[in-house]
């Protein structure tokens, strides 16, 4: 009978600059639907990478591929030096997962939820108590540790989910839509928690469809659309490259918006359409003749990541 080894989980910080995650030509199909379509993605150690995209872009499937809860039809995946799915168990021992879906056990207390996962993550017996205490403290739930998870507020439950994924102090954390459905105050609270992870040197892969979340937390962003990465870079770089510094928004009836688009495109400037307006990107490079043609009624604002996303994918995000 194989006896469980008492070898402790020693998390060795990876060399700065090396990748924690590597995906090459990864394809995942569900019947006729191709959820991930030739995805190439590297996540360097020690950064927070925002995987940004609308619902259905393939973000959650990508997360599941990394934990081998979905198996790729094609391509190669490596996580923390381990080939997935073949060596996924070892990779999972050094990573923490915070799912989009709340799957805490509601009948168990906050503390019990953490204790169960401390066992599952092989936290050695002598360190288990301290690991649970640390996780409770990190999630600001020490005072509520004896409360059943089902009786905690939405924000507390989400913090507990994050703490559960961190109870073994992983080198890599996968956060799948960590703040979806939460009110702004709770979201800001969680941002502080996630920011703390990054400053601790933990590699974070965070999927989100909130532009503000990606801008606020991510060192680097991968914009995902139709199962592949449409653009990759630091938020500021992506904005500068694809949307410029300034944007001018023009409002009006449909024919006026069409005219603005036509004139902007003729001058080689990208635009993005929302319901009642057209935004002309890279407005700082707008020739004077175009400014005259468009008129003075445009509203100027700084370009943002949403502009980049819409320009590159033609899709809207929140």
């Amino acid at each position, binding site marked *: 009978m194989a006896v469980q080894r008492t070898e402790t989980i020693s998390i060795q910080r990876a060399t700065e600059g090396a990748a924690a995650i590597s995906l090459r030509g990864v394809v995942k199909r569900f019947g006729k639907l191709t959820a991930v379509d030739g995805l190439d993605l590297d996540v360097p150690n020690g950064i927070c990478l925002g995987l940004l995209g609308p619902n259905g872009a393939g973000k959650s499937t990508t997360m599941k591929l990394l934990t081998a809860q979905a198996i790729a039809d094609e391509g190669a995946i490596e996580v923390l030096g381990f080939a997935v799915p073949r060596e996924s168990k070892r990779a999972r021992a050094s990573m923490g997962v915070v799912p989009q879906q709340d799957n805490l056990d509601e009948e168990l207390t906050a503390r019990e939820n953490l204790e169960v996962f401390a066992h599952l*993550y092989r936290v050695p017996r002598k360190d288990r108590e301290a690991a649970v205490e640390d996780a409770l403290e990190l999630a600001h739930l020490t005072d509520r540790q004896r409360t059943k998870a089902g009786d905690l507020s939405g924000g507390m439950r989400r913090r507990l989910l994050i703490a559960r994924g961190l109870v073994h102090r992983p080198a890599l954390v996968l956060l799948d839509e960590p703040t979806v459905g939460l009110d702004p105050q709770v979201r800001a609270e969680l941002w502080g928690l996630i920011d703390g992870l990054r400053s601790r040197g933990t590699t974070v892969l965070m999927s989100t469809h909130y532009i503000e979340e990606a801008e606020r937390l991510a060192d680097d962003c991968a914009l995902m659309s139709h199962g592949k990465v449409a653009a990759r870079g630091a938020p500021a770089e992506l904005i500068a490259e694809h949307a410029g510094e300034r944007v001018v928004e023009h409002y009006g009836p449909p024919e006026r918006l069409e005219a603005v688009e036509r004139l902007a495109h003729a001058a080689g400037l990208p635009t993005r359409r929302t319901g009642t307006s057209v935004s002309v990107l890279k407005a700082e490079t707008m020739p004077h003749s175009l400014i005259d043609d468009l008129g003075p009624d445009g509203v100027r604002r700084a370009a943002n990541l949403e502009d980049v996303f819409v320009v590159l994918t033609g899709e809207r995000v929140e």
Partner: protein
Amino acid sequence: MTDTTVRTTRHAAPRLRRFELAPVRGVWRHEIALFKRYWRSASFASMFEPTFMMLAFGYGFGSLVAVVGDFRYLDFVGTGMVGTAALFTSVFPGMFNGYIRRVYQHTYDAMLAAPVDTHELVTGEALWIASKSALYSCSPLVVAMFFGLDPAPGMVLVPLVTFVTALGFALFGMWASAIVPSINSFDYVITGVVTPLFLIAGTFFPVDSLPGWVHVVARINPLYHCVELVRHAVFGLKPLADLGHLAALGLFAALMWIIAVRAMRRRLIA
């Protein structure tokens, strides 16, 4: 595929074996925490159900049939109900817990994101159910002793018999939970499989009194082997026959483990 060069830094994670006890212990930690909350109701049901059954069958039906073969009918039913208890306290948790935790609570998704594989998860759950069932299944014997069953040294073997039986049925329940399209479909499993198993196991009447073809069916019913083993443990072992019965139960558990793991893996890993 453009490039398959190793690019990630290998971490000093522990070398993990294909099957480990740590996930099983983790699953048990989860179950123990839950059990602390419902042990009273579970224990109440396990003690009082056989009492009521003994009253109904023992005194009710037993007033019409005093003796079955060489046994008092009360003793015959009391020992037979151990098998029934093993069936019910394993197959239902296997089915309903398996389904609810997979589909509604997503507990299994959470566990599989940790270094836990499906076969370890299924093993941990089934071992827990079987261990609990092994103990609870003995309660009809305790109740039967109050109704006049003489204690016997062989009774200490009964928990082992019920453990192996319950392991097979817990795995059968988990397999069923993974193949049904909805929780309502358990009606087919209960009525179409569990009830016939329960009725042709020799619990309330000897299998020999049934038509010839039922004998054949009974021989492939794991519960029949459990009931035979329990009776032999209480009234006198038949070593050769009992080894056969035990082998049948072991084979059933092994087969169920294979198909339960496969079915669960298909459901949990996309």
